């Protein structure tokens, strides 16, 4: 009987544990996924709220109105360039752009989630004047408006699809983000939409590209962690590195680099050295470095829906591992993520959480949400970060592959990449530049991606000049960009 009582107690404890699990899982999933569940397009509550509430305004960091509602109609900026440049961040009228501010922040804009006092206030106000919350973004409308123009200034990137992300690497605030092709939500016609290549797609957050040589940042970090004296070793590049009978790594244009240090290999973006490094490190070490840089992680940022980057876990042949060293073989990342990797290097190894919302205020002016930074993850040690930063300095300022991004009065560091992929059986190349300004008075990271570049062109020739324009604009408008009060 005594033993039986003991077993009864065990069963009771088992049931209690199950209920504890229920409670903890419920709280965890609602706090982590709640806003994503709520803002899903199929939520009938939002449609109902739209009938009763006037959608709130969207402002940029200086208080410029980016979207407002007048007589039931949504009004975006008055300048056509501004409307087009920010259409992917803000959203279009028909909700075709997924996870834009208009859809992802609908709970705030329609005042669905508010404090108790606000709920009472809303109930007391006659329904025809009920207004949602005002959402202030971290964006700088001036920079964001001219961003697509920088692509058009250079013949190699003009008219191409692509994406650009600019963020403050200390706070994670996204200052500008654009996706090309973009369109003016006020004047766009169905024929325009049909003629553009996936215009509703926010390529900065939701397009997964092979990172190519920009991934060498991660491979270098893994190598420096695993092999402490790696900087004093030398490598031999013969232009090709046969991995198996069917696959050999080639350098761009089959250049032979000769004897190189790791620093030289990074500066000149030598694939052979990085392929051999990947094979030496092994798949597990490289994957674990990639995962600490955010690959294979479920990004649950508060303000942005960013698709998850991946470092494949299955089907890992030696060919694939070698190609992973320079960011090929089914590795994928978004431009926002590659920008975050630069931000992490600039920030001493801590990747900030990207933020898009500065504040949310009710129509009556009380604060619902105010800005707070939170570091997303620690990606590498301080020492490795400063070493990576100095290697990225060589790329831009030491005559490396990114020299076209250099501006003498700034301290620009970065990494270029030329990624290969095939689309419908055709080879397609992507040009990357991800980098940052190391001066503390202008703590900005930039990532530029250009799709489908001509054969023979590289990230250094296509994307670096666009990045240079962005940095130049930032330098000329430094006082405006970093002021935060509207």
């Amino acid at each position, binding site marked *: 009987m005594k033993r039986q009582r003991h077993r009864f107690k065990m*069963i009771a404890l088992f*049931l209690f544990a199950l209920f504890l699990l*229920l409670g903890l899982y419920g709280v965890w999933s609602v706090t982590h996924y709640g806003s994503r*569940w*709520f803002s899903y397009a*199929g939520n009938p509550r939002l449609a109902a709220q739209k009938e009763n509430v006037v959608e709130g305004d969207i402002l940029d960091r200086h208080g410029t109105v980016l979207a407002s509602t007048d007589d039931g109609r949504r009004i975006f900026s008055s300048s056509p360039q501004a409307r087009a440049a920010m259409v992917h961040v803000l959203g279009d009228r028909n909700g075709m752009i997924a996870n834009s501010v208009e859809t992802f922040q609908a709970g705030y804009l329609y005042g669905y989630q508010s404090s108790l006092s606000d709920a009472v206030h809303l109930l007391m106000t006659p329904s025809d004047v009920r207004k949602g919350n005002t959402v202030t973004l971290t964006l700088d409308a001036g920079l964001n408006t001219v961003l697509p123009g920088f692509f058009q200034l250079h013949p190699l990137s003009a008219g191409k699809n692509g994406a650009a992300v600019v963020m403050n690497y200390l706070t994670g605030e996204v200052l500008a983000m654009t996706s090309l092709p973009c369109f003016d939500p006020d004047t766009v016609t169905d024929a325009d939409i049909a003629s553009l290549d996936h215009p509703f797609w926010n390529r900065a957050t939701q397009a997964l590209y092979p990172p190519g040589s920009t991934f060498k940042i991660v491979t270098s970090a893994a190598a420096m962690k695993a092999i402490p004296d790696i900087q004093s070793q030398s490598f031999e590049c013969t232009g090709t590195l046969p991995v198996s009978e069917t696959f050999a790594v080639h350098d761009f244009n089959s250049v032979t680099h000769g004897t190189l240090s790791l620093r030289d290999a990074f500066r000149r973006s030598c694939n052979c050295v990085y392929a051999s490094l990947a094979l030496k490190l092994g798949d597990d070490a490289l994957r674990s470095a990639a995962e600490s840089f955010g690959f294979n992680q479920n990004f649950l940022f508060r303000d942005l829906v960013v698709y998850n980057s991946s470092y494949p876990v299955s089907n890992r042949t030696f060919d694939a591992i070698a190609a992973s060293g320079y960011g090929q073989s089914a590795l994928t990342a978004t431009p926002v993520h590659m920008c975050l990797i630069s931000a992490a290097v600039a920030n001493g190894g801590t990747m900030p959480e990207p933020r898009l919302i500065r504040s949310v205020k009710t129509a009556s002016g009380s604060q619902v949400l105010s800005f707070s930074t939170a570091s997303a993850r620690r990606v590498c040690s301080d020492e490795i970060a400063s070493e990576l930063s100095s290697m990225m300095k060589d790329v831009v300022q030491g005559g490396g592959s990114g020299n076209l991004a250099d501006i003498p009065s700034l301290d620009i560091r970065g990494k270029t990449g030329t990624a290969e992929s095939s689309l419908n059986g055709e080879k397609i190349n992507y040009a990357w530049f991800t980098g940052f300004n190391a001066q503390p008075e202008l703590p900005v990271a930039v990532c530029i991606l250009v799709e489908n570049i001509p054969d023979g062109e590289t990230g250094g020739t296509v994307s670096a000049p666009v990045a240079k324009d962005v940095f130049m604009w930032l330098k000329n408008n430094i006082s405006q960009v970093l002021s935060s009060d509207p």
Partner: protein
Amino acid sequence: MSKKHNRTPGRRLVAVVMLFYFLAFLLLAVRKSSREGYILSIAVPLMIFLGTNLLPHMFKADRLLLSLSNFLCALGVLILYDTNPAYAYQQAVSYGIGLLSMVICILLVRSVFSWRLLVWPLILISLLLLALPVLWGKETNGAKNWIALGPVSFQPSEVVKLSLVISLAWFMSRRKMIPWLLFSVLCLILLMLQKDLGTALLYYMTALMLYWASAGSMIFTGIGILGGCAAAVYGYNQFSHVRRRVAIWLNPWADFENAGYQLVQGLMAIASGGLFGVGLGLGMPTAIPVYESDFIFAVICEQFGLIFGICVLLMYIALIWRGVSVAMSARRSFHSLLAMGSTVLLGFQTFVIIGGVLKLIPLTGVTMPFVSYGGTSLISSLCLIGFIQGVGSMNESDLEEDTHLAMLG
């Protein structure tokens, strides 16, 4: 003795609960301007009063257990009145019948001394009842577990729960392993044929836990667990509806307009409630398919918030705790196992459905005890509470006899 009963949990708490329901129903009645709402605002607190205050005068009942089950039943009626008044009237009637059935079950436990004569006919009737839907059942939500007798339609598996608990407890107390095993397996097979996987899982867990609690043999319990796992794997490979359930659980968003629609709508409802809920009568709970039964927990979370949802979980925990302590203080093996079986069945059923709604485990269509719409389910849940109360009142009488004898001695 009466002093002790007055102490826990206090008439004042019951008064607060009654006031809460009076105001809640009144609020909705004014909003809907419906006469039935005013009637409910009086009737439901009255039933709570009768259920928690009158019964302890008749038997030595556990007041906490009574208050908790009455609170949950009334919560069900309240939610249903907001979302679909017609369901609420039926539910209120079932609540009344359930309270009477609970009294009958208490009397049954107290007065039947020869269960042997009852158990065999009970088993026969149970198996017949479970076989009926297989032959003439009507299919709802993918399972063929309802039968219609003229105007009344009911779910035999809910009724059989009661005889399952009685007969398993009796067999175990007499160490009759072969009939125990045969009856359990036959029930499970019939439930599988009805495609009622949720109930099958409940029966299986109840049988297994009762066996381990009384026999304590790790080897046979292990074999039972392995057998259950084998059946689960077989079911997954054999039945497409099982595979579909698992696929929906893994990613309801993949096909959120069809297969995953219900789960996704439930999650949206929970998310839109936030921590404190949108408020009684507000929100759009009726957008969730089967909001009145399987997904009533999502409705509770949307209207009253996640914190209240967790309080509801705590109420079930308190209920389990009382049930287990009644089982532990029982003098007779049969009584102890009867109370334990009823508690395990109620507790596990709650976990299975709330876990399914929160997407912690694959969704299986069982009801949330006391709260979900459904007469058979509500009545059988209150009958299980009746069993626990019956055993509890027997314990009290035994204790009283002891003190009496001690005083004589």
